[in-house]
C-alpha cells in the first residue's frame, strides 16, 4: 500500500448555522486543502449540517498537555472573584 497513506490528516470544523461557532466534528485524509473541504462537505454535511467549513492540518494544531490535572489550568481554578456570585449585593438593589 502506498500513495493515499501519505495524504495528510485534517481536522474538520463546521459552523452549523449563522451565529454559532465552528465546532470540531472529526477528521479525514486529503491530498490538499481543496480536497479536504470537498470531502468534508460530502462527509459531514450531507443533511444541511453546516454553512461553513474549516479544514486544518492536524499537525498544525497546538494542544495543551493531556493531563487532566494539568497545572496549566491552575490559574483559572483559584480565582473565585472572577465569578459574579463572589459578590454580596443586597436583594433590594435592582437589575444587578
Amino acid at each position, binding site marked *: *500500500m*502506498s*500513495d*493515499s*497513506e*501519505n*495524504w495528510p*490528516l485534517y481536522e474538520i470544523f463546521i459552523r452549523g448555522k449563522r451565529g454559532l461557532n465552528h465546532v470540531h*466534528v*472529526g*477528521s*479525514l*485524509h486529503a*491530498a*490538499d486543502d481543496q*480536497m479536504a473541504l470537498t470531502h468534508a462537505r*460530502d*462527509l459531514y454535511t*450531507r*443533511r444541511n449540517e453546516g454553512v461553513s467549513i474549516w479544514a486544518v492540518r492536524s499537525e498544525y494544531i497546538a*494542544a495543551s498537555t*493531556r493531563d*487532566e490535572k494539568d497545572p496549566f489550568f491552575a490559574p483559572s481554578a483559584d480565582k473565585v472573584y472572577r465569578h459574579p456570585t463572589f459578590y454580596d449585593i443586597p436583594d433590594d438593589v435592582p437589575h444587578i
Partner: protein
Amino acid sequence: MTEAAGRDAEHDLESRFEATISRDQRIEPRDWMPEGYRRTLIRQIAQHAHSEIIGMQPEGEWITRAPSLRRKAILFAKVQDEAGHGLYLYSAAETLGIDRAELTERLLEGRQKYSSIFNYPTLSYADVGVIGWFVDGAAICNQVPLCRSSYGPYARAMVRICKEESFHQRQGYELLMTMMRGTDAQREMVQDAVDRWWWPSLMMFGPPDDDSPNSAQSMAWKIKRHSNDELRRRFVDMTVPQAAKLGVTLPDPELRWNEERGHHDFGTPDFSELKEVISGNGPCNTERIERRRAAHEEGAWVRAAASAHAAKQAARAREEAVA
C-alpha cells in the same frame, strides 16, 4: 525513576482512568489508558468501520436495478451514508494512534473482521427492504447504547450515525409496505426475504453471553453497555409487532409473547453457522473481500493522481512566493 516509582506512577494513572470511567465521564484521545482498553477499542471500532464499508456491497448491487428513480435515489443516499459511517469510525479509530490505511490492510488480509450479516447474498429487491428493516434495525439496537460508550470519539461518531440510521430503517419498512400492497408474487418475495434474513439478523448480536469471552471486560470499561443476549431480546421485542403490522411471518415456531417475563420467547439462532460465517465460510465472504480489494486497487491511480496534483500545486505556490 526507580522501578518502584515507575510502578507507582502507572498505578496512579490507572486509578485515575478507573475513576473517570466510574464517574461515567468520557476518556479522550490524549488521556492515559490501559493498553488493553486501547487494543479492545481499536479492534471494535475498526470492525465496526469495516462493517459499514463492506455493508455497502449487498445493497449497492441493487442500485442500478432499482425499480424507480425514487427508489434509486433513496438507495444511493443510503449506501452513501454507510460509506460516511465507515469514515466517521475510521476517524475515531485514528485518535487511538492507528492509521486507517493500516486498518484497510488488516481487513484485506483477513486479520480484522466485519459483521457476519454482510456475507449473505441479496437475491431480490425485497432484500433491500428487509435489510433496512432488520439489519439497520439491529444496528440501531446495537448502536444507540454505544452513544454513551466511555471513549469520547467513538461515542460521538455513534451519535452522528444513529441520527442517520432511522432513515435507513424507515425506507426499508416503507419499501416492504409498498410491496405488500402489490401482487401475490411481490408479497411472496417479501416473505421469502424475511425467511432468509431473520436468523442471520439475530446472529448480528454475536454469540450468546456465556460464549462471549471479551464481553465482561468491555462492559466493565463501559465500551459496551449491554450484553449480546439483552440486545438480541430487545430487537425481537421491537420487531415482532412491526412484522404483524406488515403482514409477514417471522420464521420461528418458538416465537411467542411471554406474559410473565414481559418479553417474547424465541428460538436459538444456529450459532455454529455464525462461527462458520465469521471464520470466512459464509456464502459471500470471498466475494466481499475481493470486491473491496479490487475497489482499493482500482482506485490507486486516482489517489496517486491526486497526490501528484497536490504536490505540483504546492510547488507552484512556492515558486510564486519566491518570484
